[in-house]
């Protein structure tokens, strides 16, 4: 596997965030733009993976695609499987991928005046890019979640599938 230093990536990512800060008026827009940048990465990752694994059938099951994101995509991009993949407790159509420390957040401290902003929006975009292009449109967001006994909050990527996906799945009863 070809590698670059984590620092090279971190400086590039930091500059991506800084550039986008100059293009927006508020934090919601910044989140959206980082998510858009991530979306492009996610779409490409799926494309590359399908290209490499030619012959493999395309993932059509919801849990299949989620585990693909949690395992394969995470491994390729971040060098490890995500810490956890859970089903939302409140809603049927919600799933959560959590990471104690998201790679993109490794060196980043969010200023107090930015509230709950999380640069993981970029990763949320990656996830949405993969899911959308695999035929599972969804809304994906990144959140800091405080952990008991931990100094730092973890990041949870919240995936809410579009109504049509939930509808289709319930019809087929193949959750």
């Amino acid at each position: 596997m070809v590698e670059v230093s984590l620092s090279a990536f971190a400086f590039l990512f930091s500059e991506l965030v800084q550039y986008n800060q100059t293009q927006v008026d508020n934090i919601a827009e910044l989140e959206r733009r980082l998510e858009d940048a991530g979306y492009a990465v996610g779409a490409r990752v799926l494309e590359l993976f399908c290209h490499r694994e030619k012959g493999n059938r395309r993932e059509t099951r919801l849990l299949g695609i989620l585990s693909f994101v949690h395992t394969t995509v995470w491994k390729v991009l971040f060098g490890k499987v995500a810490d956890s993949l859970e089903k939302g407790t409140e809603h049927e159509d919600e799933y959560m991928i959590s990471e104690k420390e998201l790679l993109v957040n490794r060196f980043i401290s969010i200023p107090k005046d930015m509230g709950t902003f999380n640069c993981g929006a970029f990763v949320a975009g990656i996830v949405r890019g993969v899911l959308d292009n695999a035929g599972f449109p969804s809304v994906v967001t990144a959140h800091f979640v405080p952990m008991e006994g931990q100094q730092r909050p973890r990041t949870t990527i919240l995936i809410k599938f579009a109504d049509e996906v939930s509808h289709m799945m319930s019809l087929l009863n193949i959750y």
Partner: protein
Amino acid sequence: MATVYNLFIINKSGGLIFYKDYGSAERMDTNDSLRLASLWHSMHAISQQLSPTIGCFGIELLQADNFDLHCFQSLTGTKFFVVCEPGAQHMEGLLKVIYELYTDFVLKNPFYEMEMPIRCELFDLHLSQAVQKERVFILGR
């Protein structure tokens, strides 16, 4: 036990961009720390001019009766210095660790503006760990 009293970081124009107290006998107020930083910046520069040897890059260690001051200046002009108990060891190593933490948790933070005061939670966190480790290391000898 070797004690680090406080840590200063000065940008290349002599402005204090970081100050942390690790338990000095008398806490310094903001004005004092700013004054001390700019004074040290000048003294450091003057020492280069006064030095009889060619290629001197300024004072690295200042020893007084009741404290030592260790200074490290990066090639880019940022100065890091710790004030510590007289005779405290390994301060050069500590300054190197601090410089590395600065490159990680300050310079790679998109919300940090160059040359401005450092307010980065992760930097504080790793810094206290490093200073703490220094203490543990010395205790363990």
